[in-house]
């Protein structure tokens, strides 16, 4: 794997300079709310998910004027949004945390926040077991649902909401968050959780490579892979290069680049292929052209991904903490 930070200083400087005219940063700046957070679109209420993506994008641009202050306010918003059990809710006033906890931990770890909020969040994640793999559920699935979907239910990842089922993207986000923190920050159960979650991802891969939300086969019919879940699963498995599932999924991604129809998929595919050191036929200009078409419907997470895709990412997914640490 070629780490993202191996690009030359000159190359970084060129990319940062070109970003000076970037509409992505302009939209991210415009969308930050008074409370420090970001909504999904400019003028919308602050939410945890878009705040995390905006922070992760702005962290790569800290040298720019005012960015540090924006980052600080964004981190404050995240800290203030954390629930007492350590999790984060998807929407204001929600009293139950969910999958965005992984994103919040990832963003706070990347921002080097020392408040302990991320550690508390990671402990919540490790205690949050999905319900679909409980012995009773597995019994029911074995005898009554065996024709619907053939999963190996002994593997367990993370769900979108607590006490439901494991799905690909929340599992990938939890793995990425855990890969970004010092080993002593994780509870003892983390190693087992990560092991089970990685095997869940392999098990849920669609025939031929790639992932969809987590249904590789329903009623015997193969599911179709999608770009976004494939990228997140691959990034979660980025230290598993050479494994057949990872190679098949990279090949699927490369084969399907021509079918990409959105800024989100363009940006994420570019990030993924760069992270794996593959040749990247998606150019920065392609992402900008896609933005010019409809401004990504002013979607903040998509804009943040585009900013990340068009910028050097020296501090992004650069460190992988060993799983057994």
């Amino acid at each position, binding site marked *: 794997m070629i780490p993202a930070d191996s690009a030359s200083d000159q190359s970084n400087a060129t990319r940062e300079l070109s970003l000076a005219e970037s509409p992505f940063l302009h939209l991210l700046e415009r969308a930050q709310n008074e409370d420090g957070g970001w909504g999904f679109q400019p003028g919308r209420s602050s*939410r945890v998910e878009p705040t995390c993506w905006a922070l992760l994008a702005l962290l790569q641009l800290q040298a720019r004027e005012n960015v540090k202050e924006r980052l600080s306010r964004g981190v404050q918003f995240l800290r203030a949004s954390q629930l007492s059990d350590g999790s984060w809710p998807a929407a204001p006033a929600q009293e139950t945390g969910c999958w965005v906890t992984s994103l919040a931990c990832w963003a706070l770890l990347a921002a080097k926040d020392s408040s302990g909020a991320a550690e508390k969040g990671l402990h919540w994640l490790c205690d949050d077991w999905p319900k679909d793999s409980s012995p009773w559920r597995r019994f029911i699935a074995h005898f009554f649902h065996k024709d619907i979907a053939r999963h190996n239910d002994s593997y367990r990842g993370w769900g*979108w909401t607590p006490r439901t089922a494991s799905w690909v*993207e929340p599992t990938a986000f939890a793995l990425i968050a855990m890969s970004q923190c010092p080993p002593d920050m994780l509870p003892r159960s983390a190693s087992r959780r990560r092991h089970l979650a990685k095997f869940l991802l392999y098990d849920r891969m669609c025939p031929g490579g790639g992932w969809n939300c987590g249904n590789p086969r329903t*009623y015997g019919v193969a599911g179709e892979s999608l770009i*976004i879940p494939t990228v997140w699963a691959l990034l979660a498995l980025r230290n598993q290069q050479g494994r057949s599932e990872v190679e098949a999924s990279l090949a699927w991604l490369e084969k399907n680049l021509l079918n990409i*129809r*959105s800024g989100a*998929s363009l940006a994420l595919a570019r990030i993924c292929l760069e992270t794996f050191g593959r040749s990247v036929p998606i150019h920065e200009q392609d992402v900008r052209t896609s933005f010019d078409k409809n401004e990504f*419907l002013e979607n903040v997470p*998509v804009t943040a991904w585009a900013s990340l895709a068009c910028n050097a990412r020296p501090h992004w997914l650069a460190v992988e903490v060993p799983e057994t640490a």
Partner: protein
Amino acid sequence: MPDASKSLIPSFQRPPSRVAIRRNANYGQDLSSLLYETLLEFDPPVRGKTVLLKPNFVGPDPLGVMNTHPAVIAAARDGFLRLGASQVLIGDGPAMDRDTEAILESVNLREYVRTPSRVFVDLNVDDVKCVPLKTRASRLKELYLPKTVLGVDFLVSMPKLKTHHWAGVTLSLKNMFGVVPGSCYGWPKNVLHWAGIDRSILDINAAARPDFAIVDGIMGMEGNGPIQGTPKECGVLVLGDDPVAVDATCCRIMALRPHKVKYLAGAGTLLGHLNAAKIKQLGESIESVRTPFAVLKEFKALQEN
């Protein structure tokens, strides 16, 4: 106005519902005139109001068999504007794929609706408001729903005519799953499955209260729908002022028994009319457009003898 605080009207207190069936062989025909003329018969209260069309966008669909066809959406939008609506928005929150832009591109919405970015609302990422569920059909006590859905004056469910491998059929009531925001509940909106699909459908429809339904049945899907099924030409548009009655009529067109669809049976006691005697049929007769749909073996009991 869809208002979650409005108490539910038991079906026996509703006046008879009206459902129109229009024959239409393909998407290239003049759908605008057909829909406008049909809407005129219903005279919906939309003058000066904001209308939200809620199509069924499931995923990338180059063959046009999975999602509500943009020609039908554009024609409906045109019809409501001609009836005097001040604004007609289009909104959906695709359930299986968060890449809404990719879905819009794959259905080619921009060819049919000018500046779709100005009229389309991605309900998955809209601002949300907590709505207590008064029906409590499922074990859910509340749902966070998009403020756009709760704030418009007239909500129109615009599904595709399809079978569904969990619910039997997916029509205007099941289509309302798409108003539940993925940003809160994920892709798919799995919490609804855990709460029971059939019961969740009742809770969502009781909370969001769609005012009207327009079903794209020109090309439907049978078998293992709503994504992996087989395209099925049916050649109809079905419209009505009671989504339950519209869905019941669609079932009869598909040669399925609406009372055997669990959530429709429940909806018939809570939300609208299921019995044919309570539905005034306009346009074509059911018999003249009847097109039996294949279902998975789990749903054989739905089929008419």
